């Protein structure tokens, strides 16, 4: 029951996020606004209890949710055949740069704080 109530809360806030984005012409995707709304709503214990179970379930299986979009790579085979190697190079190198910069910056900031 709590999972269903939690899902109802998530969907309601997602809809609210979509509505706010359209009405106020905000440059954010609806789910991101929904996330900010939920962050505010979590101060109420009633919301916490209901959201915890469904959030753990959804985030625990997050990687499954990327499979349908990932299979969409079959629709881009033409592009990949044409630019595949360069695309892979760009994606790999920029991901490594992003990972390295984030990890090293955060580590340095946290070490500076500890000292």
């Amino acid at each position, binding site marked *: 029951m709590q999972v269903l109530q939690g899902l109802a809360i*998530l*969907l309601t*806030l*997602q809809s609210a*996020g979509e509505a706010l984005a359209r009405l106020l012409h905000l*440059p*954010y*995707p609806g*789910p*991101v606004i*929904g*996330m900010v709304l939920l*962050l505010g709503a*979590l101060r109420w214990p009633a919301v*916490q209890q209901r*959201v*915890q179970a469904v*959030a753990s379930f959804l*985030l*625990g299986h*997050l*990687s*499954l*949710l*990327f*499979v*349908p*979009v*990932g*299979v*969409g*790579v*079959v*629709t*881009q085979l033409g592009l990949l055949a044409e*630019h595949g190697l*360069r695309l*892979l*190079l*760009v*994606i790999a190198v*920029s*991901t*490594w*740069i*992003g*990972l*390295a*910069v*984030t*990890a*090293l*910056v*955060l*580590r340095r*900031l*946290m*070490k500076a*704080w*500890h000292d």
Partner: protein
Amino acid sequence: MTDFVQLWVYLASTPLFGLNATLVVYVLALAFYTRMGQAPWANPVLWSILALGTGLWATGTAYPTYFAGAQFIHFLLGPAVVALAWPLWERRAALRAHWARFTLAAVVGGAAAAGSAAGLAWALGLPAEVVLSLVPKSVTAPVAMGIADKIGGVPSLAAVFAVLTGLIGALSGKTLFALLGVGRDATGWMARGFALGTAAHGIGAARALQVHADAGAWAALALGLQAVLAALLIPLAMRWL
């Protein structure tokens, strides 16, 4: 034989097929991943995509036919993004104490990933719409699609690039962090998890969560933070450029 062909044609055209195939293949891929001791190369998303993609190609099934069923799983990405508020809430004490450090690391790391992707793609002479679709690739797929749409990229391309980015992060994070000397102490796990959530979004965060509970929590926090920051800053930055 013709009966069998007719049955296949019928089954392959109902939404049940895409949903069923996605779940079964993923469950098998996850079992394989567990069996391989969660080795990065055995990543369940990678093998699910390869198996399903090959299956569609071999049977001549169109992607929209597959997606008619798979969309029920895809749809859950929306509520999952909303649910990211939960790990942020759980870590609110750390977030309150270190919000400036987290935000700085997320902005600098996210900008490094997006900037290097756009710069490299441009230098290698990739078409403009491809370059623009590469910019939001570190952000979780549904948000990346929204951003790509706003800045003149192609949403479906951005989603594929985001998934490839997540896979590369999940596959190579362990080796990269070892090379950089990011350790396995509390600060090291925080830096590893946070970096995976920032630069390799949900797929990187899922990997972090499987390896170490703390790293997973920091990754989920970074993922939520990156979604908010990127949705805010990328369209703004593109307006200035």
